[in-house]
């Protein structure tokens, strides 16, 4: 029998840190010296997934760029809760301009840095799902097309949360928002609408596209670091649960991101030049119901009685993702 060394670290890489690993194998977030790009005192709601996702992603980008980085931010929760004038929670160079133009501002900064010969300073542009898939879509598509040297990060909480939970192009079917009420024969958002931005980004054949969730920190950090190793247009789409808009318990933020991935509803993968290169496999598969039930935006699927037909249609979406991306362990690599 061939000799196989045992590598087993109690919690492996699932937790943030691990005292059994050497320093260089630990996550950015486990370090006492992490940048804390987003610092204390910000006004995000309890259990905000976006605040968490932004700190995870930007701290990793700071480390990858050697702390040489500028960030352009679209309008949205992330901008509002961090910078109510005259306070700021940002501990990195950060600029806000408009709702729809963060990709364009990022492009401009990259061009200016190139003109000044400061190639070592990297640019990140970021927005929520509204600023990405709806309002900022044109500038973003342009940035992809021109292959500008910007990493664009979308923090997707699946609606316009800042303005009062209105539907966006990223709102999933059957979800209730302020503009897709849970009334009528097909309550909530319609099936067959909305956009899948990661796939659209891949269609632009840009160097790097990836999806991630706040439940898998190591994966998210790896993808940000990898994205920073490329030049040209790159896109990372991070699922960030919103307790306010989703009607979930603040303490459930990470659990819900995990269930989104484990049910197959949110496929976690990476792609280079338009081709999927790796997927994060489902570890313990769960039916979509487990993901839907703790969220009040799906309450109408369970009360007064279970709407098995609609739940079945959502399960079909998950099943399609599973077969399309090969998300289960048994699938060949």
């Amino acid at each position, binding site marked *: 029998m061939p000799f196989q*060394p*045992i590598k*087993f*670290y*109690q*919690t*492996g890489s*699932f*937790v*943030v*840190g*691990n*005292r*059994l690993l050497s320093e260089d194998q*630990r*996550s950015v*977030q*486990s370090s*006492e010296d992490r940048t*804390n790009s*987003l*610092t*204390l*005192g*910000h*006004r*995000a709601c*309890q*259990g*905000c*997934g976006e*605040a*968490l996702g932004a*700190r995870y992603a930007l701290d990793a980008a700071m480390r990858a760029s050697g702390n040489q980085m500028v960030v352009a931010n679209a309008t949205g929760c992330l901008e509002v809760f*961090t910078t109510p*004038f*005259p*306070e*700021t*929670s940002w501990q990195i160079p950060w600029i806000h301009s408009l709702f729809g133009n963060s990709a364009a501002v990022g492009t401009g900064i990259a061009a200016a840095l190139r003109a000044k010969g400061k190639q070592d300073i990297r640019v990140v542009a970021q927005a929520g799902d509204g600023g990405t898939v709806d309002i900022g879509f044109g500038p973003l598509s342009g940035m992809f097309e021109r292959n500008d040297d910007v990493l664009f990060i979308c923090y997707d909480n699946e609606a316009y949360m800042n303005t009062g939970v209105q539907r966006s192009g990223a709102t999933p079917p059957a979800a209730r928002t302020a503009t897709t009420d849970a009334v009528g024969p097909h309550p909530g958002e319609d099936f067959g609408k909305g956009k899948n931005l990661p796939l659209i980004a891949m269609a632009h054949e840009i160097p790097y596209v990836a999806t991630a969730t706040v439940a898998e*920190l190591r994966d998210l950090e790896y993808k940000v670091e990898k994205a920073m190793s490329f030049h040209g247009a790159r896109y990372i789409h991070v699922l960030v649960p919103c*307790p306010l808009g989703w009607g979930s*318990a*603040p*303490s*459930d*933020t*990470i*659990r819900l991101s*995990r269930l989104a991935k484990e049910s197959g509803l949110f496929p976690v993968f990476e792609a280079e030049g338009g081709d999927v290169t790796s997927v994060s496999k489902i570890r*313990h598969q769960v039916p979509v119901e487990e993901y839907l039930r703790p969220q009040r935006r799906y309450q109408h699927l369970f009360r007064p009685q279970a709407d098995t037909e609609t739940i079945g249609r959502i399960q079909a979406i998950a099943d399609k993702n599973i077969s399309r991306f090969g998300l289960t362990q048994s699938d060949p690599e």
Partner: protein
Amino acid sequence: MERPFAITLEVGTSRHNKTGSWRVERPVYVDRLPPCNDACPAGENIQGWLYHAESGDYEAAWRKLMEDNPLPAVMGRVCYHPCQTACNRGSLDEEVGINSVEHFLGDLALDKGWMPEPAAADTGKKALVIGAGPSGLSAAYHLRRLGHTVTIYEAGANPGGMMRYGIPKYRLPREVLDAEIRRIEGMGVEIVLNHKVDDLATVLAEKHFDAVFLAIGAEIGKRAYVPAGESARILDAVSFLHSMEGQAPPLLGRRVAIYGGGNTAMDAARTAKRLGATDAVVVYRRTRDRMPAHDVEVEEAVEEGVEMRWLSTVKHADAGKLLLEKMTLDEKGMPVATGEFEELEADSLILALGQEVDLELLQNVDGVVVADGVVQVDRNMMTGVPGLFAGGDMVPGERTVTVGVGHGKLAAKNIDAWLRGTTYSRPERHEIAPFDMLNTWYYSDAPQTVRAKLDVARRRSTFDEVVQGLDESNALFEARRCLSCGNCFECDNCYGVCPDNSVIKLGPGLRYEFDYDYCKGCGICAQECPCGAIKMVPETI
């Protein structure tokens, strides 16, 4: 200061905004009692020593273990590990092989010659321990550690009590036992062998000692009346196992019947098999599931070819054969005779029907209460006589080595308090950490590592040790399967998952602190803590 129009606040960081005021619940770090620690009769801090073993610091792990138990190498072999039965990992995949890691640490310590921490400064107090079994040795060890002068009077020619004269060699090699006892002697404990105390009253009257711990065990095999013909050969299991130490083994014949369903019956049957019996048949009046013997013992006995005759009692013994009566169980599970008989060929019958305490030494002592054949003690392990404590098999409780070691430790703490003129009060027990309090997502999937067993053919014919130890990599793997239930193991999860950066990391070994100025009380840290070491408590107004 000059400020822009309509601006009342200074330009600056959001740190001015103390978001802690939003909170209605606050997270607090707690240490809960892991089920293994809760279940351990010796009161070991199992989670605590596994924590050190996880990082490969075996000496620290062993030292932590030695705080509670002076016989790890013995315990790693003979303990029936109730800790593993209680282990939360059993609800996930398989329980952690705690016993096998203890076995490994115990052997490693003997191998490396690690010595216990030096005893505390001499207190000038003298304690006497009567009986050098697990309970007496444990009490002596702990009393010596606390700085008292300890003498043990042992009736036998060698120390160890039931560990030597009751547990067969194939489960506990004598060199291991000797080495661990020598280590206790090395701390300055004096063991006086061949010194049977026949009259405790005289010893107490001499007042050579400030306190006495009585742990003489239960070494008399119970006899049940079995009508027998003149040439029937009947032995009791305790004397039988005792005679395996040094004396010429008794002649049993080819076919041996063992009457009883406890661990001693299994030990006797397995020993008989090794002495050359072709048939070793255990006769028990109830069924397997009602047998007091532990599962591992029964399984290993069956593997070695021991046969079981359930629902049977011995009615009559004659030369070469036994008359058995078949039994049935009533609705309460009690055996009832059926009147059906059968014969079993057997050259000898070994009775393993339990043991009794030899209480003769107490005859002239006033104030010791004896009930059901055992000595009654209060919760401080003291008998009715001030300064006279008792423990182990001679007091009420399960009769195992581990319970004995636990009694010894508890008695030592009480004797220590008694010698200092105070009373020992047990520290308050932490809340238990149940399985549903864990977030098991975070633990890597890993099945248990099984200790190799000696080949069955060799087990039937030799007294070589049956269960082999783990090697270093296996032991490390096994230790790392620990979930650290209810006790922080510094995984940094709370530090990472806080959306409000309100967890302060204090550095290796120092754990974390909450920054309540900013913590909004979302509860993600508590929900995502793998081991359930964070509790949410309502804020008071």
